[in-house]
């Protein structure tokens, strides 16, 4: 793992900051108090920090909140201000404004409101969210992580920007029927560590299942739109944005041929063992999300993935 650590150190010490994808500035002021916008945008976050804002910033990267709630190539002022199209063949959902603006963002939400959205997929007025907001995974987060995220989001400068209505057919605009989807496909609950496994595995399992929600894209769906449990992580040719999503179980039709080093490098930097570079939605997941994670957390995710049952499923 020496190379990986080396790369991490390099990013910290020698990053020029002119990169498209990863101009992270890990040296941004710790404990940003919302006074410098650039500070919040560039904040790398730190899972070990004493400051909940720093821990929350880290989780916002890990959970891909930034990827879905910030428009691509948008000005820094629009950080987490929504407007990012999430394309589906049925229409386009738009990530919402989750800045601290009280009118258009979530600035007037209590911590309970926020926890209910993350855990139950419900808005403060009780209505249901579409599962394109991956609360089916976030429901498994710990109370303290949800609380840290809330602390961070309160520090994100409010942006006075209205949400773009989802571009979906009229019948899908009826949120009441989402209750049916939830009944069939959603179970509220917390992540349960496995006492027979070590700490690294449990950390990886938690991050993968509750936070980074890899399975949301890397699994086929049943007719009712839930994850097909028998093929969780086994990939699908009907991915969220129309393309195929590879099998990431350790089978030869999946990532069986990848070493741990290759997997970590891919999540950190997007390069696969052949020297090719990820595209599609995975490129966004990496550049706005996993590339911000610590070497230990990436190793934990890889440890967990490698322990999955290998599933034969050739995706072309």
């Amino acid at each position, binding site marked *: 793992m*020496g*190379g*990986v650590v080396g*790369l991490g150190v*390099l*990013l910290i*010490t*020698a990053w*020029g900051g*002119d990169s*498209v*994808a*990863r101009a992270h500035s890990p040296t941004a002021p710790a404990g940003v108090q919302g006074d410098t916008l650039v500070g919040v945008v560039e904040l790398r976050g730190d899972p070990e920090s004493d400051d909940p804002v720093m821990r929350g910033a880290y989780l916002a990267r890990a959970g891909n909140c930034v990827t879905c709630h910030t428009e691509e190539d948008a000005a820094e002022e629009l950080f987490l201000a929504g407007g990012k199209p999430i394309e*589906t*063949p*049925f*229409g386009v*959902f738009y990530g919402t404004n989750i800045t601290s603006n009280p009118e258009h963002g979530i600035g007037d939400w209590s911590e309970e409101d926020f926890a209910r959205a993350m855990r139950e997929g419900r808005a403060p007025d009780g209505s249901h969210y*579409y*599962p*394109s907001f991956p609360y089916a995974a976030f429901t498994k987060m710990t109370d303290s992580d949800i609380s840290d995220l809330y602390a961070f989001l309160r520090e994100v400068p409010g942006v006075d920007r209205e949400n773009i209505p989802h571009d979906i*057919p009229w*019948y*899908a605009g*009826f949120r*009441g*029927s*989402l209750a*049916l*989807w939830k009944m069939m496909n959603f179970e509220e609950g917390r992540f349960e560590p496995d006492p027979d496994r070590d700490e690294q595995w449990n950390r990886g399992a938690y991050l993968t299942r509750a936070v980074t929600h890899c399975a949301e894209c890397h699994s*086929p*769906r*049943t*007719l*009712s*739109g839930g994850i097909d449990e028998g093929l969780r992580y086994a990939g*699908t*040719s*009907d*991915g*969220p944005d*129309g*393309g*195929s999503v590879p099998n990431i179980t350790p089978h030869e039709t999946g990532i069986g041929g990848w070493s741990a*080093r290759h997997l970590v*490098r891919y999540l950190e*930097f*997007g*390069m696969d*063992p*052949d*020297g*090719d*570079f*990820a*595209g*599609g939605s995975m*490129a966004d997941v*990496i*550049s706005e999300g996993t590339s911000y994670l610590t070497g230990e957390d990436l190793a934990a995710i890889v440890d967990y993935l490698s322990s999955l049952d290998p599933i034969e499923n050739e995706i072309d």
Partner: protein
Amino acid sequence: MRSVPLSLTLAAGLVFLVVAAGFTAVDSRAAHDPSPVGLPGFAGVQNLDVEALVDHRQGVMRAVSGHMAASAAILLDGAPFEDRISLHGTALAGLLTDIPDLFPEGSAHDESDARPEIWEDFGTFTDRGQDTMERAAAFGEATQGGNQAEMTQAFIALGDSCGACHDSFRF
């Protein structure tokens, strides 16, 4: 018993479809038939061999990848071939000088992963290509200098730019 309004039943049923379909694909590739190429330099040549163009650009991309993989092994994982890093740097700089030219109008093909957006927004595509070409040149130069931190930084910047183009322009 009051009957449930039809529209509600419909809505409830259909929302399933929407939710499910949120994860179903449409492959826009099928919509784009390969068509003859009209390169300015090839005026008069009908049905220029698109397959050959695709084979060529895919070959270039794979060659580039090979140098990226080898460079990563040397720079990031310590494979003991520092003396050869400039070979890879020079090759990358040399191969990555004309990316937009590899994608002439009309060179979409069944066997190609090139998205139609390339030709719908050739300006952005060219910008992405330009970005990569500049970074490849910078990496090539850094490998002449031999400073480890500089080389690694230039290498990572180059890799990021490959992903930035694939993100929008490759299936």
